[in-house]
């Protein structure tokens, strides 16, 4: 897959302090990129640089292989964004806002507006000024506005803020649909892993302005996150059984009493049976799940992410 967006050593300093530090991001065409990090990690600043609102101190952004400059206004036609908080001309109605948006974007498909509103399930808003909307409604309207012009890259900064659980579920469906049916590429930021782990194809983890890791979810998911943990006082005997009787190689001795078996060719029952046959006394034998959350907590040092 080709990269739709790539940043190289992207850096932004404010008064000598690096808000974003040498970020190398690669967003592939058609994927959902989850941009994960605690509050104040620099997610919004990166997104603002991508949308030309903030100018990088150093580094480059490439969009569709083309280098972005201060005057790359044309590129903005191919993006749809919500940055920070969905803002509207709030004395106007939702429809007036969307019409204005179309005019400014140079996009004149009248049907698109209705479709977008339907997509985010925003109804009964006829003549109310946006001022009277709840945050959840504004969030939906913001998504409708961003999607309306059928952008190739959809940038959503914390799009799930202010939505109720049902709304979150609905929006997840919408994101998935936009990605799969419309082939849009989505860049979604969040400080909550749970929000994006289910839909993201790639996750980029940022902390204190540094992109710690950029990893495909498939790799993490496929990375043997399930294992069987056995606790025994006779671990050397158990290792012998694992190695020679069961011919297993993919296991790890964690400490003198704990062994983790990552091999998924053997079931818990078979393992138990084999060990008992050899008369090895087991204190416990259980299936464990090394969750994604652990993975990211590890990465980010624990505070304020999950």
């Amino acid at each position: 897959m080709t990269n739709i967006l790539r940043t190289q050593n992207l850096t932004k300093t404010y008064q000598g302090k690096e808000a974003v530090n040498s970020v190398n991001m690669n967003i592939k065409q058609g994927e959902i990129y989850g941009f994960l990090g605690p509050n104040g990690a620099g997610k919004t600043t990166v997104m603002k640089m991508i949308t030309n609102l903030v100018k990088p101190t150093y580094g480059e952004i490439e969009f569709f292989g083309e280098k972005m400059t201060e005057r790359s206004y044309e590129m903005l036609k191919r993006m749809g964004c919500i940055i920070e908080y969905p803002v509207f001309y709030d004395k106007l109605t939702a429809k007036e806002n969307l019409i204005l948006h179309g005019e400014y974007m140079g996009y004149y498909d009248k049907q698109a507006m209705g479709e977008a509103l339907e997509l985010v399930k925003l109804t009964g808003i006829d003549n109310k000024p946006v001022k009277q909307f709840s945050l959840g409604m504004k969030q939906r309207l913001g998504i409708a506005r961003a999607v309306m012009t059928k952008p190739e890259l959809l940038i959503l900064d914390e799009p799930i803020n202010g939505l109720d659980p049902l709304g979150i579920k609905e929006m997840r469906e919408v994101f998935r649909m936009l990605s799969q049916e419309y082939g849009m590429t989505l860049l979604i930021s969040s400080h909550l892993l749970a929000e994006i782990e289910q839909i993201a194809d790639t996750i980029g983890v940022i902390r204190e302005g540094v992109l710690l890791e950029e990893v495909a979810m498939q790799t993490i998911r496929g990375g043997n996150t399930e294992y069987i943990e056995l606790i025994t006082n006779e671990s050397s005997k158990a290792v012998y059984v694992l190695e020679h009787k069961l011919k297993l190689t993919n296991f790890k001795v964690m400490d003198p009493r704990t062994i983790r078996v990552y091999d998924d060719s053997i079931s818990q029952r078979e393992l138990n049976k084999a060990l008992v046959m050899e008369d090895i006394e087991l204190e416990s034998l259980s299936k464990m799940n090394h969750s994604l959350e652990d993975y990211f907590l590890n990465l980010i040092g624990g505070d304020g992410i999950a």
Partner: protein
Amino acid sequence: MLKLIALEIRKNKLAGILKGVLYANLAILAFMILVVFIDQSEADSTFVSYADVFEGLYVFVKSTYIIFAAILLSKLVIEEYKNNTITLLFMYPISRKKLITAKLIIVFLFTLVNIVVAEIVIGGILVGINHYVNVVPGQLTWSMLSVELVKVGTSAVYAAGIGLIPLFFGMRKKSVPTTIVAAVLLVSLISSGFDEFRLGNMAAVSIVLAVVGMGVAYLSIRKIETADID
């Protein structure tokens, strides 16, 4: 550019401001009638000639519309920053320079046109009334009229330029009150003085201030392309 101007007008519902313009003009008219025709009991009348009457009118009208310009600047520029809708605006595939220029053109033309219209219409009404009551002595000649018209035109251009100066102060902290207060101070500065002498009447002062206004407008556009929107 015309399209951008039209969008701004629609977006900010600027048609509504015309009502304010009407009320302001009526107030100026009422006040002028009061001081020119009604308040004539005093021994020495303030307005002894048409030139004096027009002079007074111009000061009023210009002051009013310079403040109007500040209100427009607040609505079009300052509030856009305050409400953060500027992030929205600057994410559109349109050069920032053009977007801001469209706004400033609206303010400039609004001030210019309204000053010219108000001065001619209210001046005309005053002359009409005087035709019946004959309070202001003297005749209105064609040559006088043409001199006045030129004055109306040029001073309106100056005032429209001056009207942009409050943008400079308002933009520093993105504050609406600052913008309006700057306009009020500016107005009291240029219309201050006594009898014959008025700061705003000195062509040099007007021109300087007008040029400053244009300069402010230019500065606010010049830096806009590279500025971070936080």
